[in-house]
């Protein structure tokens, strides 16, 4: 027989036993909530869990209560997870609950899978419905908590990336029951404005329970219907929610969302400068091409039309000659002289005729070389002959007879 000096000792002993027994140290139990009281000062919830024959006192502290995705109510069938202990002050045997799920709702992962399957079948996640995220949004709408790291991560990233941005925050609960209605109100609000070009829905990482508000069907449909592109950055890296699937773009983190919603300033500036010089170059190349075409046309005319002209003049000369043979030698000579000078003049126009007589001309970088001045040893020159051209390298340079290079 044990002898206890005090009731306190007895209660501690009993608690020791309860905390060492795996069945009472960590348990889950199903029952119906009754006599629920949530104290305004502490925020803790006290209630009775009962079935047809039995009941047990329960307490759920504020921090755990806030993590629930529903509000417990009397009469609700729930599964409590927690531990059993005796509250020494009253001797009451009770459950300290740290999680609660509504009975009959299935577990959260299963619910999410079902919703995913349903919305996917309806085509809400289809790629062809995704809106394009603009490069330079006039204004970025953010739906997130106004406190905590997330909004500041976004602002810091934007500051680093592009100083020319404007951001409007719609403060929303990102956990618990208020989450989905808040986020939906934010989407409605931004949609009612005409200056918001992209919306970011953001919150940090958390458990499936923490993120449960983003697995809401009504919210998913509102994101789908939103005419403004939505980037979802809910949770961290590996956390996926229905909100991520239905959004136009999913960012693994709030920081990544900030990177995706606006182009990097330096990159945009460099890219635009490149485009500008490409445009100028394209026009210059076009002008050069046209000039070369014009030159080619001029050359072919100089070669072609004078010969035709010369031939026709020859023919008429013959005719005139015949006529003049009958008319008198003096006149013939005079005409012959005049026609010949015209023909000579015209033949002079064609450089090819000059080349045919054994001349050639030199060019350097497509410009005719007319003097040795400006030439250097080693320069490459093109010599054009009547039937082709050769490329030569300058070995010696003479000005007059004097060697100067």
């Amino acid at each position: 027989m044990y002898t206890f000096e005090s009731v306190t000792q007895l209660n501690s002993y009993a608690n020791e036993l309860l905390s060492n027994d795996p069945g009472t140290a960590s348990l889950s139990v199903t029952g119906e909530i009754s006599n629920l009281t949530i104290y305004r000062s502490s925020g803790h919830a006290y209630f009775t869990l009962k079935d047809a024959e039995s009941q047990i006192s329960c307490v759920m502290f504020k921090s755990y209560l806030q993590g629930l995705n529903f509000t417990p109510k009397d009469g609700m069938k729930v599964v409590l997870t927690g531990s059993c202990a005796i509250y020494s002050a009253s001797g009451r045997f009770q459950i300290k609950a740290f999680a609660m799920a509504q009975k009959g709702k299935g577990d959260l992962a299963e619910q999410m899978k079902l919703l995913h399957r349903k919305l996917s079948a309806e085509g809400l996640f289809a790629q062809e419905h995704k809106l394009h995220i603009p490069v330079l949004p006039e204004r970025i709408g953010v739906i997130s908590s106004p406190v905590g790291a997330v909004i500041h991560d976004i602002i810091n990233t934007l500051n680093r990336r592009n100083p020319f941005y404007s951001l409007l925050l719609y403060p929303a609960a990102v956990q618990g029951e208020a989450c989905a209605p808040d986020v939906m109100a934010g989407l409605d609000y931004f949609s009612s404005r005409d200056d918001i070009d992209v919306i970011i829905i953001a919150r940090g990482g958390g458990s499936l329970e923490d993120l449960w508000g983003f697995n809401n069907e009504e919210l998913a449909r509102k994101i789908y219907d939103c005419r403004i592109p939505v980037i979802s950055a809910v949770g961290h890296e590996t956390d996926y929610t229905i909100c991520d699937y239905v959004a136009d773009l999913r960012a693994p983190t709030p920081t990544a969302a900030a990177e995706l919603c606006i182009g990097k300033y330096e990159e945009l500036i460099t890219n635009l400068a490149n485009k500008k010089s490409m445009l100028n170059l394209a026009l210059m190349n076009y002008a050069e091409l046209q000039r070369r075409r014009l030159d080619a046309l001029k050359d072919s005319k100089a070669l072609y039309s004078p010969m035709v002209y010369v031939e026709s003049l020859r023919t008429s000369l013959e005719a005139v000659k015949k006529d003049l043979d009958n008319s008198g030698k003096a006149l013939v000579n005079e005409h012959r002289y005049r026609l010949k000078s015209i023909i000579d003049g015209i033949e002079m126009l064609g450089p090819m005729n000059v080349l045919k007589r054994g001349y050639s001309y030199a060019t350097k970088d497509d410009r005719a070389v007319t003097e040795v001045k400006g030439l250097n040893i080693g320069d490459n020159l093109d010599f054009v002959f009547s039937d082709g051209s050769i490329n030569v390298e300058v070995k010696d340079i003479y000005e007059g007879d004097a060697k100067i290079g």
Partner: protein
Amino acid sequence: MADNDKFLYEDAIEELSRIVDKLSTGKCSLDDSLDLYTRGVKLASLCDKKLSEVEKKIAVINKDSLEEEPFAEDQ
């Protein structure tokens, strides 16, 4: 891009790229080429303007009044 539509930077850049490609072929008439070039210069200057026209502003919505209030970025 009609002038009264919302100016989209990426659309302007894409049109500019197409203009450069088209002009580079050298197959357009002189008039068309000059028109393309003029349009390209206009797009580039619109992009220039767009790149830095937004003034940095961070605000938060007051959900009761729906008024914008300044938001302190360093907290």
